[in-house]
């Protein structure tokens, strides 16, 4: 600690620069080169620029938190699991899956499609309005699994888990949100 104080006291610093003779501002670079500074200073224009940038980014982040949405990424609100679920209302767990030519139902994930479940949830309304968009999931699955049996149906299901006093009861119901059959497949 003592050595650091000694080190700092031997160098110019932005905290206080006094001109004893009233000659005006001191040239920072000259002061530092004169003293043989041991510290890599953030001097000159760099210091105020850094301060201004920090204040601006902080203000934008605050705005995003107070009034923004995810669209403002990376300065949007950090709202992961920020909503309040009711203690006695069902909670949603979204699945997207395919049924293939063997009749097997395969749960889809970011591993076997490259699409995250939350991305499906984020655009759920679009899939509900236009189920043919599920071809995107079909294509993604076939691209990453070319040797797997072909899908004959793609669907999005919300599983609603019942809660009682904030704990899971074990009961659930499935709600099919969207379903789509690839062209050429006959049921």
């Amino acid at each position, binding site marked *: *600690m003592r*050595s*650091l104080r*000694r*080190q*700092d*006291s*031997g160098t*110019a*610093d932005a*905290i206080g*620069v*006094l*001109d*004893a003779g009233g000659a005006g501002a001191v040239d920072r670079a*000259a*002061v530092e080169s*004169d*003293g043989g500074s*041991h*510290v*890599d*200073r*953030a001097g000159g224009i760099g210091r105020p620029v850094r*301060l201004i940038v920090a204040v601006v980014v*902080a203000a934008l982040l*605050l705005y995003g*938190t*107070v009034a923004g949405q*995810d*669209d*403002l*990424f*990376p300065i949007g*609100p*950090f*709202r*992961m699991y*920020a*909503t*309040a*679920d*009711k*203690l006695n*209302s069902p909670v949603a*767990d979204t699945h997207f899956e395919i049924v293939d030519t063997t009749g097997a139902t395969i749960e889809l994930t970011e591993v076997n499609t*490259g*699409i995250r479940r939350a*991305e*499906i949830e*984020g*655009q759920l309304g679009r899939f509900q309005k236009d189920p043919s*968009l599920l071809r*995107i999931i079909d*294509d*993604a699955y076939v691209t990453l699994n070319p040797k797997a049996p072909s899908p004959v149906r793609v669907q999005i299901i919300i599983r609603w888990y019942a*809660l009682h*006093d904030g*704990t*899971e009861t074990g009961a659930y119901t499935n709600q099919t949100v969207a379903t789509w059959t690839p062209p050429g497949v006959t049921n």
Partner: protein
Amino acid sequence: MRRTATPPGKHATVVVTSPTVASTDGSDNAAVEPAPASSPRPPVGRRVSGWMFAAVPTGRVAAFRTVVYLFVALDPLWFTPWVRSHAAIPGVFYQPLLVGRLLHLPTPTPLLVNGIFWALIPLAVAAATGRAPRLLGWIVFALYFEWMIIAMSYGKVDHDRFGLLVALAVLPTAGPARHGGTRMTERGGWALRMTQVAVIATYFLSSWAKLRFGGLGWLTSATLERALIRRGTPLTDLLTSMRWPLLLAQFGIVAFELSSPIVFFVRSRLRYWIVGYFYLFHVMVMLTITISFAPHQVAMTSFLPLEKVRPIVWTRRFLRRPGDRLHRTRTKPSADDEHRSSAPSPAVVDGHR
């Protein structure tokens, strides 16, 4: 206070130095050393400025660079490989963020996504070496930022990236830094401080978001139960049948997030304990709801005395034969060896005292 050299014919200039910005032990930049009792207390603005620019050893900046850029190189391969899969997804699924719209960023194509993938990884590895920190740093920042914009433009935005993005934005401004370097740097200190602030802002503002979207009712809601149902592990199957652990956890999370800025107001030893608790929190989150917050944890290493972690030096020492050790004790150590010595005195500045 000292008097600078004055050119003939000019007035003498007196420089009053900072009484507060020095680190207490040279190994961290978060503690604010109290001014001597006899010194006048500088204005708040200057103290804040001094805090933001508190100097750190260049060795810490170099180590932080390596950690951050190695993570960036690993991220597209290990943590976000799904982003590359979006190259084959039709543009109709692309929902550009505001920043993408403002910058008129193109709809991702296989050429764009794979181009970023194959450029980002080698350039991040190169940046991890510390060479050309400004040029490589800005290129890596631009590539990774675009990688993230693509990642978050398909209906889901992650909230664990802010600290890492800030780190990538400020590291190019941190100046040159060499592993093991003991020269103190304000530019590097500012870069680390901004990353630290971003990390803590992520915690603090997460609670703000909870109060905004969930209200005070969030504290007693079933939100964690929903998280466990969606992303639970065998460990959490035990928890979902009981109400009180989750209720306590929700109060604990908000208390933790709102109190996290305290890390800036404590001395280094306690601060390391607090940061250790942050990491423990993320271990628990990973074990219960399988969310890693890996980029956030990487940014959080900005709180740590990374310059003391010298795996290459340790490996070399370990591999050095006993005969070599004996030989070295009989010869004068090289300047390079002096730089590698452990626990360097903060007063030693790249060989100068």
